[in-house]
């Protein structure tokens, strides 16, 4: 039973590519056969997060236009043999790929892989419509911020209009201390508005940035809160029932402030 998952958000900068990379590595660590497709043509960066930029030979546009076989364009991950990346072109734009092409490609990859994860571009235009075309499941990534939640809401509406009804939510970049002090929307507020199944709450963590710069996703790093959160999401995608974890507070000063009731 293979599954095609699209990771989308509407708003940029909420962590679609980071989430895609982490889910891909996480699932591969659990022994699943995974292929990641970057559909952000012209602004590709999923390869950077995975540290695979210098291994790219061909890209999605070459495959769609029939210049190479899919097999040749896939880039194998350094550590995990069962994780492949299909990068996109940095020189072409989003009009180079249309929904029917991607749908056919997903159906082809579905035969061989357990999970096909598509990294969707920001926005609701053609690139988005292309990315979601072949997906069974959509994962909407948002942040506890009014603009990100508003855009997520819009995206859920768009997915509904495209008859994608299996939609799940990941809330990314949560700052537990700010949520506690009431400066950031809390999870209940977001769930109340979006009203879809939440499969992950990921805290904001500097390790996400440092690991992205190294090209090694943070998932599975037990010293990192975000890494643990991503590992839990991977478990939930595989059908396990894992409760949401409690976040550690931001450190000494946050605790001190709390002790004095500030």
């Amino acid at each position: 039973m293979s599954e095609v998952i699209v990771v989308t958000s509407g708003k940029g900068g909420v962590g679609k590519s980071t989430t895609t990379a982490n889910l891909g590595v996480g699932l591969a660590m659990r022994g699943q056969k995974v292929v990641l497709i970057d559909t952000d043509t012209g602004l590709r960066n999923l390869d950077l997060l995975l540290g695979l930029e210098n291994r790219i030979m061909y890209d999605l546009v070459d495959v769609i236009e029939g210049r190479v076989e899919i097999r040749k364009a896939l880039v194998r991950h350094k550590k995990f043999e069962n994780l492949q990346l299909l990068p996109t072109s940095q020189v072409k734009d989003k009009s180079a790929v249309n929904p029917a092409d991607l749908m056919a490609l997903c159906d082809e990859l579905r035969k061989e892989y357990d999970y096909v994860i598509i990294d969707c571009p920001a926005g609701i235009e053609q690139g988005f419509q292309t990315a979601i075309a072949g997906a069974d499941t959509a994962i909407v990534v948002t942040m506890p911020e009014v603009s990100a939640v508003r855009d997520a809401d819009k995206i859920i509406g768009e997915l509904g209009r495209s008859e994608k009804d299996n939609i799940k939510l990941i809330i990314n970049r949560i700052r537990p201390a700010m949520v506690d002090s009431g400066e950031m929307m809390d999870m209940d507020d977001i769930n109340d508005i979006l009203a879809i199944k939440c499969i992950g709450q990921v805290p904001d963590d500097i390790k996400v940035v440092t690991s992205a710069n190294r090209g090694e996703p943070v998932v599975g790093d037990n010293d990192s809160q975000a890494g643990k959160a991503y590992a839990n999401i991977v478990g939930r995608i595989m059908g396990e029932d894992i409760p949401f974890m409690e976040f550690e507070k931001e450190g000494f000063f946050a605790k001190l402030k709390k002790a004095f009731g500030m």
Partner: protein
Amino acid sequence: MSRDLVTIKGGKDGFRLLVDSSASMEEIEAEIKKKLEENPGFFPEGTKFELEVADLDRSVKKGIDQLLSKHGFGVDKSPKADNHTADNIRGIKKTGQPEQTTVQEMMVLNRTIRGGEEVTSQSSILICGNVNPGAHVIAGGSIDIRGKCRGMVHAGAWGDTNAVIIADRLMPSQIRIANMIARSPDSMEQSDFAERAYIKDGQIVIEPIER
């Protein structure tokens, strides 16, 4: 351009179409057509315009009549002496309601209306679900929301001042009833009971209701 030949102004009981009678029929026709097509769907089909005539040329009058009916509007021909200003400006009054029907219709939606979505109906609207921030619900009649209302709601959009808005939790960004607008306070508190908004003494009031 110094001044428009045709101006549409919102009045208390409808819209006025002001025409400069010094202009030729061709100019007026082009201008009205432009205005109507700028905003398709703004005027409901079947709206009756009342053509108020004093010294507008008969052929021009007939021209406007034909033009409006081509766009699906009727013209109410009862003439009313209403000379506005010296520079020959004339008004066409739109009657407030779309055509009266004996059977009341209602649009029923069993889903959440999400941000960026716009629901419009000539009739009343019943929504079994939430209206999220950024969504617009526009009804000719009343609006009933069995859920939380955080979007923009407009009841009686074509002038029905008796329209009401009811929601289990009424926290919209804006409430509009007929031609009145009320916006939410800048720091919106969570409401804990069902409420109804309606027009009382010329302003929108909100009161809790049992449900």
